[in-house]
């Protein structure tokens, strides 16, 4: 049993991933908006944050709802990983590794795709850009399980390589 498989470490990882996913999903659109706005204003963070606050519930912007929409797949992923990793500690260390890799793949896909979509929409805005906010959660819900599968697959391949050598 490695340090990673120690119940306390695994619990810490699970809790960090759980709340990290929720907070990241909720705040990513805001972080991207504020960072981009601040870059445009040559580093005026305070003004960018004030603008963000003004547009949180403003008609035509609704940045709060954009955050909530983005958070939906992240919350579902968080709940899944809470049960998936949270109940793994009592099982075989091999199962823990496999689940950790699967969850890592799912988180990587969710974070990567979401960040890419929000950056793209902010950097290259157009009239239909806001549709991304509606479709992104659906794409994420489809791709997160794929990311999980990829993580498990990578683990399996790596394990096979290790056993051969």
């Amino acid at each position, binding site marked *: 049993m490695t340090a990673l498989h120690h119940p306390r470490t695994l*619990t810490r990882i*699970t*809790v960090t991933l*759980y*709340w990290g996913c*929720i907070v990241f999903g*909720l705040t990513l659109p805001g972080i991207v908006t504020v960072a981009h706005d601040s870059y445009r204003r040559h580093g005026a963070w305070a003004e960018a944050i*004030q*603008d963000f606050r*003004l*547009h*949180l*519930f*403003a*008609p*035509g912007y609704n940045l*709060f709802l954009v955050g*909530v929409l983005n958070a939906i797949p992240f*919350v579902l992923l*968080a*709940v899944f990983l*809470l*049960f998936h990793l*949270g*109940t793994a*500690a009592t099982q075989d260390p091999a199962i823990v590794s496999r689940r950790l890799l699967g969850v890592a793949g799912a988180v990587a896909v969710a974070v990567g795709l979401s960040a890419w979509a929000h950056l793209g929409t902010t950097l290259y805005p157009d009239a239909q850009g806001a549709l991304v906010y509606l479709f992104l959660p659906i794409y994420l819900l489809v791709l997160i399980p794929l990311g999980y599968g990829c993580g498990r697959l990578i683990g399996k391949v790596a394990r096979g390589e290790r056993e051969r050598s």
Partner: protein
Amino acid sequence: MTPRQIGLHLGGLIVLIGLLAGWYWQSTGARAVPALTGSLKSDDAKVRIAAAQALAEIGPVAKAAVPDLLNQALHDPVLYAGTTAAGALRRIDLVAARQVMTAYLPALNNEDVQKRRDACAMLEGLGPVAKPAVPALSNALNDTNETVRMQAAGALGEIGIPASLVIRGLAKALQDPAPTVRHRALTQFAFSIPPTEAVVPLLKQLLEDKDRSITTLAQVALNSPLRQAKDRTAVYVTILQMGSVNDYTLRQLAQFGLEAAGTVPAVIPVLKHDRPLFRYLAAEVLGAIGPGAEGAVPALIAALQDQDIVVRDSVAEALEAIGTPEAHQAVTTHRRIDGSK
């Protein structure tokens, strides 16, 4: 993790969702009015603008913000803050919106060019509520300053009613020597004002304009679905029947006049809408249809009791335009009662 630990984290998530829902509830709708009214007093123009836009979205339940919006529309040093406040007033309180119109109308003849431009912009912000300003704006198309003429054309397009006067003014602007004025007038025909047959020759002339953007826009106006569709009102009827009433739809119908006679059954329920702007525009549509809207007379007579005087006046005008004896009788009685108040 123990089941208790997992349960605690799930509970935490539920609490977070509850807090977010509470925050959203508190920050939207009528609950947000006091905070937004406070923001209208901010030193930062961006905050004042955002607050006015949010209040406009909230609509008539933001009535408590009217004095501050009125103050912003009449006195704000930043023009855009003033026009957004005017835009909010038209969605909240028609009487206050008309007060803004009355305050800015004399400025159309001010010696200061900037004041004349600002007046045009403010009247544009008021949209269809500034209907009584149409003759003055048509005169402003003779202004010596090109920007004033351009903004007057934009204001006429945004007000949009009465269609005959607006189209006459915009047709004149199509022949303006300044390309910016022609461009602004053409934009109205391309996207919001249905071009009449009388305007078509002018649009065709502009296909030969030296300015390329004008020729392109003239082509757009000539191909506009507002001109070419067989039944131009059908889409707007569908919108009304779906319950998604909006000022653009009603203003378009008001511009079609008699052609919109088939829309009367869809327009009548709007006379009872909770937004005074929509009730006002519904009366304008029926008035523009005229005798073809005879079926709306009972509903219009009932609407003479509307709590908003601007709506009542518009309803009375609509009844006069329909012109049945019953309608005339109702208007005469209404004028006597309203006058004695």
